[in-house]
Each structure stands twice: as C-alpha cells, then as structure tokens.
C-alpha cells in the first residue's frame, strides 16, 4: 500500500516536472519569437531578386508584400514602378504602412520609377520594423510592383 502511494507520488512529481519544463520551454520560445534576429532577412509576397535591363537588382511584389527594416535606420527609401504593357492598363495605387501605420500612398500612372522616402520614428522596443506594400491591382502573373534595391 505504502509502495503504491510512493509510486503514485513519484508519477505526480514526474508529471509536474514535465509540465514545468514544457511551460519554461514555451516561455523561452515566446521570448525569442518576440523579436527574432532572422526577421530582417524575412519577406513575404515577393518573387526572387532579378537583374533589370539597367543591371540593377529588382524584385516583383504581389498585391500585398511585406519586409522588415532595422529600427535603427533613420529613413527608408523605396523605388517602385509597375508595367504598362496594354493601353487599357489602369494606374496602380500603392499604400505603404510601417508597423500597420499608414505612411505613404503613391499612384503609379506610367512605367517610370517612383521614389518614396519615409522618415522612420525613433527605435522602439523591437530591433526591426515591418513595412507593408499594398497595391490595388496586379498585372499578369499576379505581379503588381517592381521594387528596386539600390
């Protein structure tokens, strides 16, 4: 009887230890994921980088694309353009948000490069800021914008 109680107590201790370790692991993972260093290299909604006719590196964005910039940066310079291959191609309106706060709006009505310079606020609690680009329409192959990397 006593042995049985001992075994049961041992089992409970093991379970408690397992739960405590799992919770500690979860807290550690959450703490890491709050501001992970790999975000700077992460982007979504873009194609791979390509080399444009003028030799510069460009990539296409879909209707919604996002990427991250360092919080220490003072400003962000974006160079964008879209294609006008058909006479009835409508202008593309691009909204730029920084951590979900609208910071710029551009209307691309011809095929020329347009530049947007955004002043970034002082560094907050995270090491990166998220930039979202939303276009109101796409061109063939689900592409909306060409983004230029200087």
């Amino acid at each position, binding site marked *: 009887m006593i042995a049985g109680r001992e075994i049961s107590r041992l089992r409970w201790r093991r379970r408690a230890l397992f739960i405590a370790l799992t919770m500690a692991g979860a807290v550690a993972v*959450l703490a890491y994921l709050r501001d992970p260093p790999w975000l700077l290299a992460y982007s*979504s909604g873009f194609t791979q980088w390509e080399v444009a006719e003028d030799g510069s590196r460009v990539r296409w964005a879909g209707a919604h694309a*996002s990427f991250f910039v360092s919080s220490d940066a003072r400003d962000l310079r974006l160079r964008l353009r879209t294609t006008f291959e058909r006479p009835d191609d409508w202008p593309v309106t691009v909204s730029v948000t920084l*951590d979900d706060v609208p910071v710029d709006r551009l209307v691309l009505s011809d095929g020329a490069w347009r530049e947007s310079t955004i002043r970034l606020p002082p560094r907050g609690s995270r090491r990166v800021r998220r930039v979202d680009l939303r276009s*109101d329409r*796409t061109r063939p192959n*689900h592409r909306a914008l060409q983004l230029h990397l200087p």
Partner: protein
Amino acid sequence: MADLRAKQRAGGRGAVSRAMIACAAVLCIAGYVFVYTAGRAGPPIRSDGFSYYVYLPSWFIYHDASLASVARDCCGGEFPAYTAIIRWPGTRRWVNAHPIGVAVMQAPLFLPAHLLTKWTNLSPDGFTLYYQHAAGLSGLAWTLAGLAILRRLLLRHFTDGVTAVTLVTILLGTNLFHYATFDSSYSHAYSFCLFAAFLLLAERWDESPGAQHAAALGVVAGLIILVRHTNVLFLVCLPLYGVTDRASLSARLHRLLKDWRGLAVAAAVATAVVFPQLALYYLATGRPIVSAYGSLGFNFASPRLFGVLFSVQKGLFFWSPVLLLAVAGAIWLWRSGHGARRFVAGAALFLVMNTYLMASWWDWQFGGSFGHRGFTDAFPIFAIGLAGFYTWALHRRGTAVAAGGIVVTLVLLSMFQMLQYWFGILPFSDTTWSQYRAAFLRLP
C-alpha cells in the same frame, strides 16, 4: 474478435504498432523539415492548398464570408486562375471549387499561428510564415491522427504485428507520406483520417448503437462531405457494413430500420455540419448546391479506367503496386470468413463507384501529383485488405518470406520514386513510358 482483444491485452495492448505510430511521426516531421529546408517545395499554402485554406483568413482576419476582402489583399481583387475560385455569372460573387472542410480542420492550428504572428509582428494577412506552416503541419497532424485511428481499427481484427506492418506499408509504400509532407495542404490527408474514423465509428455503432456513436458518425460523415463533396459516396460503407451475402444484406436492412432513430441523429448532425457550406453557396449564387467548375465536368460515357488504375501517367497500381496485395488480401478476407470481411462489400462498392467517377473526370490525372492522389483518401480500406494479405501470408512460412521481400522492394521503390518526384526527376503529370524508363532508379 473478443479472443483477439484478450490476446492483445496480454501482449501489451498493441505496443509494436504504437511504437510504429511514434516512428511514423518522427519520419513525417523529418520529411516535412527536409522538404522546406532543402527548398524542394514552395510555401505550403500553394496550388489547390491555397483554395482549401483561403477561407480561414477570410473568416478570421477579414470577417468576410464572401472571400472578396482576402481577394483584394492577397491578389489585387482577382484570384489567379489556378485557384479555381471563380466569379459566379450573374451575381459576380466568388465561388470556390474547393469546399470548406479542410479549412475547418486547419482552424485549430490557424488560431495559434495568428496569435504568434501578431506576437512576432509578422504581417497578419493569413499568408506569412506561421500561417504557412500551421497549414502544412495541420495536414501532417491529421495524417498521423488517421494512422492512429486506423491502428485502433486494425487492432480489433488483426494482431499487433500485422497492424504495425500494415501501417508502415500504407504510409511508405503509397503516396500517403507525400501527402503528409510535401503536399500536406491538399485535402487527401484530411480525408484519409476521416475515412479511418468513419470505418471505426461504423463498427462501434454496430456494436452499441447509441446516440453518442450516431452523433459522432454524423460529425465525421459531415466532414467527409465538407472536405471533398464526391466522397459522399464513402458513406455507403455504413449501410453495407457486415454484409457478406444475401441473408446478411436483408439482416442489415432490418437492423438499420430498427435503429432508425440513430440514423436520424447521424443524418441530422451531418446536415448541420454541411449546412455552412450550403449557406455559402447560396449567398454566392442563390443556389445551395452548385458546381464551381463551370463547364469542366465528367465524361461518363468514356471513363479512363485503365488510366486511373494502371497507366504510367497516374495509375494507382503502377505507382503504388503494393496495393495489389491489398486487393488480394480483401478477396481472401471475403472468402475466409475473417471478422474484417464485414468491411469488404462497402469498400468494394465505394471503390468501384469512386474509380468510375475519377476516371470520368475531365482531368482524370487530377493535375500534378505523385501517383493518383484521388485514391489517397481511401487508403484506410486498402489497409484492411493489406492486413488481410499479411494475415494470410503469415500462415504460410515460405509465402511470408517471399511476400516480405516483395513488400520491402515495393516500399523502397515507392519511396525512391517519391524522392525523384520531389527532385523534379519525375514529371508532375502526363508521364510517358519513355520518360519513366529514362528516370527509372536514376539518382536525384
């Protein structure tokens, strides 16, 4: 059956097959990690997987059942053609050819992914990193759940060893592993799990016909229809469970009539589960039942039966030849009087109807896939036949060794060909005999 269960209780309650499920989990996770770290596939939410999943961001992020908001955000207002999400003529509202069932089953992982996305400050649009892998890992998790349910079903009729070997063969000797890892956002892993659950519940309901089992049957039946509408045919396994001859057919009909209350509960629950889909169709088109494939449809007069079963393009038995042993096993079960033969009539009728249906579909190859993905859903019934084959072979020493050698060879061949598919050595569709010969056993 009771005798077998007593033996299994004495022998560790299926310890070998339980260990096999654990190994399958490790292997599936390793395969999934390989696919996405080695760059073998694009993000998990792609192709058909996009259309199955797209309801979740629409409902939970944009609070919009019409899919219009998500279309604006992801795609500039118009879904790409490959999604098979079309504007319904007349209403101009979006209708998705892929129903909501997969999204419903992905929801448990979508919600934590959404919270984690906000926590990390990724874009909460439904398509960034955590959403992608929540959708991908969801298919993997349902495959493992399906294997675990299948194990419970098989252990009711077969030994632990036979169950374990059957599970390994079904996972690795067919395209199930591929649809648990590489293309896990497609519907097949989900249907595989639901089919296994339906068979188990059908048997349990037969043993103890209570409202609880009937309601569970209704939920699973409803989900089967929600995941893939044509899988409604699988429900034939319920009325035909236990039918082995004319007398048992008559007895089964009497039994079902006697248990009409249970059937009514199951039907009511299934209808409630399916109702949101009908409501969505109604809101989009003004009709509760529609075909969102437009002019694409069935050619019932000229089914490609040889194509779906044996061809080099996508033939089930060409790409998963180990399933021929399952057919042999099912025939043996039927003739031997084994307890598992209760499933054979329903399974056979479903396979005949489903094969004819798939062979009649305009794209009988079902687009790009490893093997014929239309049959993946039905692997739980092939598993019963396969377990029957192993049981038969185990009683004949020489046959068991030969069968073991054949099965190991066929499983290794299937795995190797799956890797060739992942590495782009085998084409996604329309494989020709000369392409197959040129690629045969060629290393990636």
